[in-house]
């Protein structure tokens, strides 16, 4: 009987041990939190970031420390008090100040924050740099540059769509160097839009020049001050200048709720278009500290060409593509309090194995912003690019 009792005890211990697993925490959609107080506001946002932010692998922000430090602080705030709401805004600014994602932008629904700008950590860091400068005025590209540098016959135009204005300028320099400036990546959409628009006319001119200029000495793509836009423009634009697939990097997405759960790396490439002409002359990207996202991706792609160059300044440093959260199970989300947490869906790695998020892509020929030169109508960055095409 004693023996029997021992075995019963063994079985009992066995079944007790089966309850030794950790409990699975309840993870809720950030949008579903009912934000009647600041504790809920904090939990919705903190957990949304915990599960959706795509850069935890390389970000130096200690998100657990943020939880321990700010959860009690938010718990003391009153959502019905405008001063506390302002304090909450300051906490959000502090919590996000080190986030590496340079697309990152936090905007709020609360009416007491209607006059507050959205929180953009990369912009705050940029402002604090000693070499900070404002973007080059679009008027330089629209008026000064064509007058001073382009051959006769250049084209320029703009179109307003919703709240956005799209500007493009194209022409030749010394007859055999093609120049194309555009302030945003919406080229394919505008080109395929029904009816005529001024940007479409400029695009058509530039594409005709690519196809019909017999002795191209170089192509300059000017994305200075270009804030990015549609990824579809990569094939639409660069795909016209190559005759075989151009691999230039990799992307990966979240693949689980854990901060370090990632998919394998997927190749990033440009696909040649049917009407492509293989350009062997130098293709020069002109980019600066205000070249963001698709501008940086396009610059990296061009830099991967044997005839590719990059002149200008280190770029902004926000190169992870964005799409809706459901597509890659990560990235952007909203809460009741936060209108939008604008953040990348994918992490981008250049073909050299480095991730330039938060750092910016460096030029191979650095030419700093020169306000004095621009004021008198000269463009040292463009002139440096021209040296590569002559």
């Amino acid at each position, binding site marked *: 009987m004693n023996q029997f009792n021992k*075995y019963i005890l*063994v*079985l009992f211990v*066995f079944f007790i*041990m*089966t309850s*030794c*697993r*950790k409990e*699975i*925490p309840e*993870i*809720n*959609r950030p949008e*579903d939190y009912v934000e009647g107080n600041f504790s809920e506001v904090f939990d919705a946002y903190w*957990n949304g970031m*915990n*599960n959706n932010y795509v850069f935890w692998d390389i970000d130096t922000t200690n*998100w*657990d420390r943020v*939880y321990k430090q700010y959860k009690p602080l938010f718990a003391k705030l009153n959502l019905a008090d405008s001063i506390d709401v302002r304090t909450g805004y300051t906490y959000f600014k502090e919590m996000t100040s080190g986030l590496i994602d340079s697309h990152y932008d936090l905007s709020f629904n609360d009416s007491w924050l209607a006059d507050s700008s959205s929180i953009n950590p990369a912009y705050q860091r940029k402002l604090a740099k000693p070499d900070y400068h404002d973007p080059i005025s679009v008027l330089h590209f629209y008026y000064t540059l064509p007058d001073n540098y382009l051959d006769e016959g250049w084209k320029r135009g703009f179109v307003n769509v919703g709240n956005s204005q799209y500007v493009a300028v194209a022409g030749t320099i010394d007859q055999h160097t093609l120049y194309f400036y555009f302030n945003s990546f919406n080229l394919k959409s505008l080109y395929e839009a029904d009816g005529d628009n001024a940007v479409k006319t400029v695009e058509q001119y530039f594409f005709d020049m690519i196809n019909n200029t017999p002795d191209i000495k170089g192509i300059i793509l000017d994305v200075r001050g270009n804030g990015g836009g549609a*990824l*579809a423009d*990569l*094939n639409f634009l660069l795909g016209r200048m190559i005759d075989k697939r151009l691999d230039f990097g990799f*992307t990966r*997405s979240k*693949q*689980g*709720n*854990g*901060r*370090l*759960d990632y*998919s*394998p790396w*997927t*190749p*990033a*490439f*440009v*696909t040649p278009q049917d009407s492509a002409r293989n350009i062997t002359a130098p293709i020069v990207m002109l980019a600066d500290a205000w070249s963001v996202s698709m501008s940086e991706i396009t610059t990296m792609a061009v830099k991967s060409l044997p005839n590719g160059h990059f002149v200008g300044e280190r770029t902004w440093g926000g190169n992870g*593509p964005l*799409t809706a*959260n*459901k*597509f*890659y*199970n990560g990235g952007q989300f909203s809460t009741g309090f936060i209108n939008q947490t604008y953040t990348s869906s*994918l992490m981008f790695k250049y073909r050299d194995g480095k991730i330039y998020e938060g750092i910016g892509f460096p030029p191979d020929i650095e030419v700093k912003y020169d306000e004095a030169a621009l004021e008198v109508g000269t463009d040292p960055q463009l002139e440096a690019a021209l040296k590569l095409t002559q």
Partner: protein
Amino acid sequence: MNCKLFTFAILFCCNFIALKTQAQLEVGISGGYNKNYLYTSTGYRAFTKYDAVSGFELGVPIQYHFNEWLAIQAEPSYIQKNYEQNRSHFFEGVYQKNTNSYIQLPLMAHFSFGGKQLRGFLNIGGYGAYWASGKVKGAVANVFDNGPEIPDDQDIDEYFQLNQPHHYNEKYTFDSRRDRRLELGLMAGIGIEYAILNKYRLFVEGRYYYSLSDQQKNYMINQIPRYNDTYGVRIGCLFNIKNIFRKQETQTLIKD
């Protein structure tokens, strides 16, 4: 030199075990098929779930009998604990299959009951396993690889029409910040065994491994744990060391 020393040590141990353990020790081989379920949660991830995936296992059972109905058993094994993440509806076709190889050592009490030849048995114990390697195979939509243009008047049925799939099949890269490679757990098995000439015992067993170790280290607040639950069916054969040696002794006597 090292090889010779190792061989000698093995032979010495076998001889020592054979002499000392007499009828109590049985050694064999086993193999089987299993299905591993990942006990976890996908949270609110859109159209995403984890599915069980089959695998196989191979082992070397070693049983030491205290009496007719009780033994302890150790079974150094190779075992796969596989699972798959699948997306559905519009995202159909996006998946990742994880094939995970473990070197495992279950240690159990072996209770048997029944007749002389045909007996039933119950195994209960625990195991330690080392996550030795992994492989991931799957497909994701490549944001840089657009599908053919979709006419304005055409429906879009699946994600891969918008972005072409990138298929991959590669070695799993362990992340020392996240992956916990040592797994401890409980196991239970039930089966039947059939003795042949007091030398061999064939057995069939259904077995369940219940992991108590999260596959991940505790590296984040509100971490969703992942545990392996592995169900398997295995067959094998145990060899009675004493009876094999006894026959050899008899043959030696006849020669003398």
